[in-house]
């Protein structure tokens, strides 16, 4: 083990840490207001270099008993996380965060480092540490608006619920370690069937899933989400909704497929067998139903997006119940598309919030007049979330549903039909509340005729909307690299 080699493998993370320290140093110089643009640029530069080095060392590695893993699939996810974080930084450029901007940027960078580590490890302890690094940074970021009591409340809620679920997760992981005697995911895959259905192992799985359920905001561990999305500074909420979700689902998929691969169980209708599949299916069903129904009643767009995020977690959990290579590829495609869509939607919310001082539905009245470009972008994002073609969200959903059914397809009646049917029905419901938002944007009379000055982040939002449209028209652009990476990964597992 040469440390230089380790540094090469962790170069993106290292670069982000260095950037964070530099930004903090700039912040110490006192005149942080004047240096704001410089700090933002420095952060973006750091992110850019990190993304670049991700690809200049294209060697695959698995060192330190799986603590640091690098493969094509991980690289795609690290890139996605970096892109999402950098968009968050751009959205923050004009954010309401007035004081301690350097620390704010540094925290975003630290959270990003946590997510990157999460995407590049196959070891239980490392997973826990990376998750905590991400979470703790996000707790602080959520509570960053000192003058807003909603922000403080959201931060406290996030922290308390997050702390409890971290305890659950740690307890679960320790049980798994206790039964199997290893913390390496690949070693867990090789356990005997008797061990796989050991009650203690199953208890460990339940507790671990509870911990992850919190990370991805799945019912019944979702209670923090609406308050955090609403109270946190909007760019922070965007990061929680996008980057943190991408990392969370990636590592959850890995845990389930490799770590708990032997104790899957069964979730087909009337054929439930203990394991993580039925648990996941129930969490998915609850999230889909509760998320979509609760979103119907919201009057604040950020809260509405939070409930829609819960519903989307449900769809993705549903995708994970396929437990096949194609099904996981579908989830990976969907989570990346979802993150890009949702961060774009938050970008529009951020601009509106700054102009109109709030994110209630009424604040979106007549946006088409004030900012036609942003209005059209919002249309693209929300319609994609609702799963209407030709946008990427539609293809992603269709792919997940089809693969989930195909994985359970025995003869004429696929076993997962109950869950997919529920998801599709609820997805139809979701169009209703997205249309309500869009009605305010396009149909309602404008509150004032004064056009918005174009916001600095508008180009980024437009690019995101274009990406969503193009990925919908040509899904292969993302799907083929993902498929290749996933099948490469599966091959590396040396499954019998």
């Amino acid at each position, binding site marked *: 083990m040469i440390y230089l080699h380790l540094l090469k493998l962790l170069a993106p993370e290292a670069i982000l840490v260095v950037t964070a320290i530099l930004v903090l140093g700039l912040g110490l110089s006192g005149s942080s207001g004047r240096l704001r643009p410089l700090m933002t640029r420095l952060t973006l530069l750091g992110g850019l270099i990190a993304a670049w080095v991700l690809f200049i060392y294209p060697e695959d590695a698995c060192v330190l008993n799986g603590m640091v893993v690098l493969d094509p699939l991980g690289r795609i996810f690290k890139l996605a996380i970096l892109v999402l974080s950098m968009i968050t930084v751009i959205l923050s450029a004009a954010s309401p965060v007035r004081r301690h901007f350097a620390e704010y940027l540094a925290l975003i960078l630290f959270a990003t480092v946590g997510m990157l580590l999460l995407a590049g490890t196959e070891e239980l302890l490392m997973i826990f540490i990376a998750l905590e690094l991400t979470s703790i940074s996000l707790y602080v970021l959520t509570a960053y608006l000192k003058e807003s009591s909603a922000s403080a409340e959201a931060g406290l809620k996030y922290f308390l619920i997050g702390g409890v679920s971290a305890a659950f997760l740690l307890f679960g992981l320790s049980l798994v370690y206790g039964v199997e005697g290893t913390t390496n995911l690949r070693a867990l895959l090789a356990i005997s069937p008797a061990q796989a259905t050991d009650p203690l192992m199953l208890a460990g799985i339940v507790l671990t899933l509870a911990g992850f359920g919190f990370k991805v905001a799945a019912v019944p561990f979702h209670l923090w989400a609406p308050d955090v999305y609403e109270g946190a500074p909007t760019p922070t909420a965007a990061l929680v909704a996008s980057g943190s979700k991408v990392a969370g689902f990636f590592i959850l998929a890995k845990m389930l497929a490799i770590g708990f691969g032997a104790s899957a169980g069964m979730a087909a209708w009337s054929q439930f067998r203990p394991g993580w599949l039925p648990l996941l299916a129930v969490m998915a069903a609850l999230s889909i139903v509760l998320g979509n129904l609760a979103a119907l009643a919201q009057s604040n767009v950020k809260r509405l997006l939070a409930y829609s995020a819960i519903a989307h977690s449900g769809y993705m959990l549903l995708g994970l119940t396929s437990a096949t290579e*194609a099904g996981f*590829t579908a989830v990976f495609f969907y989570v990346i598309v979802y993150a890009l869509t949702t961060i774009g939607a938050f970008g529009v919310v951020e601009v509106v919030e700054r102009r109109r001082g709030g994110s209630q539905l009424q604040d979106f009245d007549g946006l*088409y007049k004030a900012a036609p470009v942003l209005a*059209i972008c919002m*249309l693209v994002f929300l*319609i994609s979330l609702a799963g*209407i*073609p*030709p946008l990427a969200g*539609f*293809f992603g959903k*269709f*792919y997940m*549903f*089809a693969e989930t*059914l*195909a994985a*359970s*397809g025995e*003869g*004429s*009646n*696929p076993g997962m*039909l109950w869950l*997919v*049917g529920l998801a*599709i*029905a609820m*997805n*139809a419901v979701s*169009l*209703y509340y997205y*249309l309500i938002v*869009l*009605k305010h944007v*396009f*149909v309602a009379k404008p509150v004032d005729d004064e056009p918005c000055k174009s916001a600095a982040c508008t180009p980024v939002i437009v690019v995101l909307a274009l990406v969503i449209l193009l990925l919908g028209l040509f*899904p*292969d652009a993302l*799907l*083929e690299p993902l*498929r290749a990476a996933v099948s490469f990964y599966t091959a590396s597992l040396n499954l019998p």
Partner: protein
Amino acid sequence: MILNATFLSAFLGAALVLLLPERFARASRWIALLAAMAGFGFALKAFAGYDQSAGAPHFQYATQIPWVRALGISFFTQADGISLVLMVLTGITAIAGVLFSWNVTQRPRAFFAFFLTIIGGVYGVFQSFDLFLLFVFYEIVIVPKYFLIAAWGSTNREYGAMKLTVFSVAGSALVLLVLAATYAVSGGQSFDLMVLTTLAFPASFQAWAFPVLFLGFAVLAGIWPFHVWAPTGHVAAPTAVSMLLAGVVMKLGSYSALRVAMTLFPQGLDQWRMVVAVLATISILYGALVALAQKDLKFVVGYSSVNHMGFVLLGLVTLNTVGLSGAVLQMFSHGIIGGLLFAVVGRMIYDRTHTRDIATLGTMELSKALPFAAFTFTVASVASMGLPGFSGFISEFTILTGTWKSFPILLIPAGIGVVVTVAFTLRALQRSFFAPQESGPPDRSTHHEDFEPITFPERLGACLLILATLGVGLYPKVLLDPIVRSFDSPLMHQLIREVASK
């Protein structure tokens, strides 16, 4: 490629209209007209060039490009007689729709962009032979419909728009479910309709997949009891959108039911055929009876759509070439006539009188005040009743002939439906246009001098539609030949032979 040019020209037109600078917003209608005419031109050229000689393939103009390799999805478009007839209908409706929305001044760019997006989606559905592609086009239509009605509509527009959208989306959710299940059950190699129809799906799968899929499509075709969106939506919509909805969007439902649900699951169809036939007959009778009781002229036309679409669905499940061809011809015929009726009621009458109440209209001496509107409505009514010489006669007659072969018993209620259709049409026509005037001085406030005369674009649009229904009525061969020929294709042949011969 000529097929793809139809929807490409519509989408391109939509994009151009959106990119137009604010100052030239009024020019958007010209761009929309050009795009609609280009689409119609391509559709007509494809229709004229369709080779009907004995040995020629049933499906022509094929384009197939791999699209999403992971799921075996391809961009696969081609056309047979049915597709081409409906594409020509789309072209005519699009042009007439633009002409009848010539007076849209409120945000014309957005209006025409949404309008053309619907047109593009409709063209796309009629030529897609890949299930996934078909569904993509099918869904593209939904969201623009909502905005067109909610922002530019009239009576109770936000309610009507949402109701219509909710029903459409519920229908497509059913379709989506079966689509995903079909992928799973078929082993997931392909969405190519030509391939899928050769697979024998297990009977137990067809038994639930067919009704779900058929219902999903039939919601859009306004089948009873899921028709409730249609009258409300049609009434709330601006004129051009009512014309589109009645003219082509409802046809998406009946077309897809035929093209996808029926060909894909013939065994399921066999099981559920009688149920569909009965529901269709109820639609005919119910639509006609409810139309008879309406006070609002636009609601009369709205319910007449339910009635006419009932004939289409009934014709489809007769499963003999006569009834099926009649159903397709009825789609064309109702597209034209329904469009014409909505044009008169929504644009010529309501935009001027600001009322659609039949009794109030009756006091206005419309036959003298707006003679052209009265003339057009009379022609449309006569065509709608199914009088010989118009397209409606040929199509309803063939459907009833087909019904007699397959469901003799249903001929009685369907026949009654025809009679009631005549009744409600004549009632609406007589009471709103030719009502006998009460003695006494005419009400000066609504005197005909006040009405703005019928404009040139309106006359042009009305003439276009009248010519279409009259032309087809006098020379139905021009459409019937390619339609009948299409039911001879391997895709349909199997369906007609195997199911109907039982």
